[in-house]
């Protein structure tokens, strides 16, 4: 009886796995031998970023806390939930706040926004913890210095994603946070109006750096937080920064492999 059901199923499975479509995608047998397992890793564009072999001690949960992995997972969650939010959110002073409220009240699963927001907070925390783990295990030492550097940039990108995303709800908290935060850009050396050395950039008695052309202006698109700021932050938040982060993550994972896999416990 059981065989009457299983036999056609396994025949169909064999048919499918022998088909040209299947063999053109998977160019190796089942991962039952070490050779095939290695082939699985190497012939897949995503998996090939991983080491073919990892030492058991190196991937122990007590060693890595899987913090980098959790951070990456959260990034994927944020990309997916963020993409969904983009179907409703309009980055204009007129609509932004109302759209955020509507997202929670008029859209089924309004929890999507919560997922995005809490996920963002969680990602900032896990990035720091990952960095702490790497530091405590001495994994920044040669030959992994370069990957530590990439990691620092990824940390900054995560914080910038958080900073730009924070403005998007366009509520009081958001506007004042960005007003205060972007004031720091005034103090950029050379490029900020109040920064060191920028007063020395003059043409005759005209000072070249002013509130209308300094680093803060480039960030805000205006002299104070307003519609141009919301748009700039939106574009950076939804396109520029995630693309840069995804690109660097690929490099980061690739280097983990090239530097000899996850470092061993001390």
């Amino acid at each position: 009886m059981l065989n009457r059901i299983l036999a056609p199923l396994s025949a169909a499975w064999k048919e499918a796995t022998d088909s040209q479509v299947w063999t053109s995608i998977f160019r190796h047998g089942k991962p039952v031998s070490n050779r095939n397992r290695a082939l699985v890793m190497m012939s897949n564009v995503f998996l090939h970023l991983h080491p073919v072999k990892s030492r058991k001690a190196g991937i122990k949960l007590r060693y890595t806390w899987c913090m980098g992995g959790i951070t990456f997972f959260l990034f994927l969650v944020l990309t997916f939930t963020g993409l969904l939010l983009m179907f409703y959110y309009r980055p204009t002073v007129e609509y932004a706040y109302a759209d955020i409220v509507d997202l929670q009240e008029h859209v089924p699963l309004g929890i999507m926004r919560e997922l995005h927001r809490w996920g963002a907070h969680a990602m900032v925390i896990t990035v720091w913890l990952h960095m702490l783990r790497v530091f405590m295990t001495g994994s920044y030492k040669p030959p992994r210095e370069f990957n530590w550097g990439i990691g620092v940039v990824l940390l900054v990108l995560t914080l910038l994603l958080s900073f730009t995303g924070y403005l998007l709800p366009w509520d009081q908290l958001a506007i004042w946070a960005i007003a205060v935060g972007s004031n720091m850009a005034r103090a950029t050396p050379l490029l900020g109006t109040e920064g060191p050395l920028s007063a020395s950039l003059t043409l005759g008695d005209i000072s070249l750096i002013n509130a209308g052309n300094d680093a803060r202006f480039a960030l805000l698109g205006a002299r104070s937080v307003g519609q141009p700021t919301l748009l700039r932050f939106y574009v950076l938040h939804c396109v520029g920064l995630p693309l840069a982060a995804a690109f660097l993550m690929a490099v980061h994972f690739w280097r983990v492999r090239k530097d000899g896999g996850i470092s061993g416990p001390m």
Partner: protein
Amino acid sequence: MPDPPAQPAAPKPAPRRAASAAKKVTRREFPFLAIGWGMFTAAMAAGLTAAGRFMFPNVLTEPPSTFTAGFPDDFAIGVVDTRFKERYQVWIVRDEEGIYALSTICTHLGCTPNWLEAEAKFKCPCHGSGFYATGINFEGPAPRPLERVGVSLAEDGQVLIDKSRLFKFEAGQWNDPASFLPLT
């Protein structure tokens, strides 16, 4: 402590190619290489400069930094006029002696305080700094008074505000005649 388990040797960098392999550029190749790389560098530099310049529009829809605010008689003595806060980020105040204008940027971290008529003070929503109508700070984290901006009389007799000039109390600049419009 037990001996650490052996780490696999880090992949060794490929040995430098023998010096002879670093082949010399010949006289014949040099001009082509120089022109080629020169053009490439120039194109990249031009592209980056253009992208940077793109972030600074030629026209801003922001209100001008100099504007006329009406005739002196429109301002009552002892009143903080908040009509220009939204558009121009200044409060215009008339006291017994004349008119001065305060910048609405909190001297703590740059939020915009509110004028609370009942308590006769400017109160910042961000961290609670308080300022008297004169602009002098008296509570909260703000380290110095609000800044004053330029005031004068325009040719038609209106009050002319010039936001491009800032006057700091702590630098003694409130004594500058351009920071104050005396009226009798």
